[in-house]
């Protein structure tokens, strides 16, 4: 019986990065009681993807990146597959470059995040424009990008604490 609880505990801890990424994707579209929250949203799902793909790729498979992207597509009403494709590609790039992104100071991690989120956001904007055959205004996208970069430390702090408390012995 003890073995069962130990295994369950281990499984739950291992599932934390995936669970947090999907939760962040849901929170990204949540009804926030903040002014202008309906017009610009920080890309919380991408922050989670970046952190876990860089720090615990062993617990964060491309399948979860794909699932989070697809969930984001379905919730936002965009073309299903686009965010899924971008999330999967971002996961692969971050996983390959994790030596650069993780293991340094927080400022370096933040800088690494900027390097990742800027092309991600611009490619997403361009791809949506191509798929809808309509150029969307860039200003709200840039405001959203800045908001995501500025708010990065907040969810990141939660992930760092989660990793320290629940995943340090894993």
């Amino acid at each position, binding site marked *: 019986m003890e073995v069962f609880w130990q295994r369950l505990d281990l499984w739950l801890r291992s599932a934390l990065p995936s669970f947090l990424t999907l939760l962040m994707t*849901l*929170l*990204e*579209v*949540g*009804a*926030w*009681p903040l*002014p*202008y*929250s*309906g*017009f*610009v*949203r920080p*890309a919380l799902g991408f922050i989670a993807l970046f952190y876990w793909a860089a720090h615990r*790729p*062993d617990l964060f*498979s*491309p*399948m979860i*990146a*794909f699932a989070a*992207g*697809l*969930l984001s597509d*379905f*919730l*936002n*009403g*965009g*073309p*299903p*597959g*686009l965010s*899924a*494709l971008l999330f*999967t*590609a971002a*996961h*692969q790039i971050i*996983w390959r470059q994790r030596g650069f992104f993780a293991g340094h100071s927080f400022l370096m991690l933040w800088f690494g995040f900027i390097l990742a989120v800027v092309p991600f956001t611009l490619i*997403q*904007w361009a791809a*949506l424009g191509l*798929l*809808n055959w*309509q150029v*969307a*205004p860039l*200003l*709200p*996208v840039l*405001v*959203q990008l800045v908001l995501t970069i500025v708010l990065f430390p907040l969810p990141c702090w939660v992930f760092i604490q989660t990793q320290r408390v629940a995943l340090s012995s894993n």
Partner: protein
Amino acid sequence: MSVRHSSSRRFSAAAVLSWRGFFQRFSFVLFVGLAAFLLILTRTQPEAISSLRTHTLDIVAPLLDVLARPALIIEDARVSLRSIVSLRAENKRLYEENRHLIEWQNAVVTLEKENRELRALLKFKTEPRQTYVSARVIADTGGAHARGLIITAGKSDGVREGMAAMTGEGLIGRVIEVGAWSSRVWLISDLNSRIPVMIAETGDRAILAGDNTPQPKLLFLARDASVSGGARVVTSGHGGIFPPNLPIGVLRETEHGTFDVIPAADLGRVTYVRLVDFSLEGGALNPIENKLRAEGKKK
């Protein structure tokens, strides 16, 4: 012996690593392929994708509902606090408003009677019956890329595609996807939203076009239209999607001499919506009615 043991351990660790690397690469190709397949399917089988999306929405809606609760409590507390602070002033304003409304009520009773008699004289075709469904907003989707809402009402509550989404202030959008107990509303500020409108004061017609910003643009306004900032913008009823005269917002002149519209409702902070079915028969330009008609023919 110990050397052999350590080398075999090294070998197995290397095998695990290479297997993991292979799996990562293989799954990357697999999921990229799957995403591309879905994107193609969106173009070739839009109905199937739409159905998949509404089913996903129904599954996720209870979770979104739970996540939206704290925000709702905060918003309710904010509104309560605001009303407590302005209680005295609000009471005075309502007292005055009530006095005016009683005067209006007397006038309306007389006008209604007169209207009824004149309609009877003209054998005027009365407006179709309206049905209402109220729903709570559980997600505000899209951010800078698209503008929409997910609400807690679906087919089981009588919601159908094309219903107008309104708040007390005016029109905010229309229902585009309906699940069993959740639906998606497309806001008037969405990039793909196009609504035939008119200026209430002058009757000048135009198209209200969303551009993902808080103020949608006004397109195709006649050059000789004598409109100015502050004029009321209402639906024109053309296209058969919405009935005429639903309030939308007020006109604002931009620096470039063009016009945009400040919506009457705060589109960034919608908590509850009222979905209205105007039972419109729909015109040739109504894509929703056309779709429903086509589906009916298929059956």
